[in-house]
């Protein structure tokens, strides 16, 4: 199958890569652009591990073809923090034990970013509702919910 150039703005950088029209955005990010922070779990939209932001909206990158994302602005887990540091959401996950094996974490972090961008002070119910599509087999979610509350507080303090 012929490849074509796909232009994306990923984590603030304009990037071009080659993709077959059947290539998934998740595979394009990992293999085409070398951004392996985005994890691929179920590859059919059931687990949420591959969640990225496309034009600011949480999106399952395994359910989008790379060519469909042409011209889009994409945020992956690599784009959350400045070089060498942790984003307040990452810091909060670390402090509240919001991860163990870490496989679901990139998708969780990006999904939480989408939530807090829109709703800076979510209730537990809203957090659980928003993250219902992100499956974690280690934590039992309690640490994740606490981490989101903590991240919300940290971001609110940063904004002050």
């Amino acid at each position: 199958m012929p490849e074509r150039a796909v232009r994306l703005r990923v984590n603030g950088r304009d990037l071009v890569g080659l993709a077959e029209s059947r290539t998934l955005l998740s595979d394009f990010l990992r293999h085409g652009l070398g951004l392996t922070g985005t994890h691929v779990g179920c590859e059919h939209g059931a687990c949420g591990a591959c969640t990225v932001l496309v034009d600011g909206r949480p999106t399952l990158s395994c359910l989008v073809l790379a060519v469909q994302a042409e011209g889009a602005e994409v945020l992956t887990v690599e784009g959350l923090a400045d070089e060498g540091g942790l984003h307040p959401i990452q810091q909060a996950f670390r402090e509240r034990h919001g991860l163990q094996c870490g496989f679901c974490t990139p998708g969780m972090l990006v999904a939480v970013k989408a939530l807090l961008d829109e709703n800076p002070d979510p209730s537990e119910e809203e957090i659980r509702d928003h993250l219902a599509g992100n499956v974690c087999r280690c934590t039992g979610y309690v640490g994740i919910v606490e981490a989101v509350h903590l991240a919300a507080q940290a971001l609110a303090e940063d904004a002050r």
Partner: protein
Amino acid sequence: MLAELGDDARVLAGGQSLVPMLNLRLARPSALVDVGRVAALSGISANGTLRLGATTRQVDALRSPLVAERAPLLSDALHHVGHPATRSRGTLGGSVAHADPAAELPAVLLALDGEAVVRSREGERTIAAASLFLGPFTTALDDGELLTELRLPAPPAGARHGFAEIARRRGDFALAGAAVVVAPDHARVALFGVGPAAFRAEAAESALAQGAGAEEAAKLAAAAADPADDPHAPAAYRAKAARVAALRALLAAGVSRA
């Protein structure tokens, strides 16, 4: 273009049902026609009728004040359609055209007496919701026809609605669900997840018109269900869940219990 490519080509809209099928190799179309960037197919407007472009993203409809005002049943139901990340891309028309028996939007279209506008090289026609859903993943659209718009008429005066769904986890496909609209001399009860396609429970509707309470109407609605055994739930459980979902939706719509 669909006509030229033949019946092995598939329309790709939001891709939240079709791409999983491609990834699992359950579908192997010869060509995909991506309608995602056709601006004329998306957007929400209203005169007497609420018009929803087929590729309107579910999240945009969920957040639309116009939808909340004109079709609050649709807003309620959209909260149950997948997860935030699938609603970002999933479209209204895609969900209707895909016609998953457990999907919410076909039942909403039935309960609101909606219509689907479809277009082909031969021209345009509208299909009433009541004749749209023929079976699992099967609609009345012909090969070469594209769903372009959903139309919802203004609800009758004094209409109230209810929506209820029973699923194993938030955002999962329903084991059973119900969408209800009631007004003076008007009742619509649509069930999903408990038959080969979403359907209107007409016996329950006529009973409501004659003053039946929610308990009785829910029982009649569930009696019209035709659930199958599957790995998620046995048929008997789904039938029970259908009665409970219908009861909850009817109570939410203000129908008295007895």
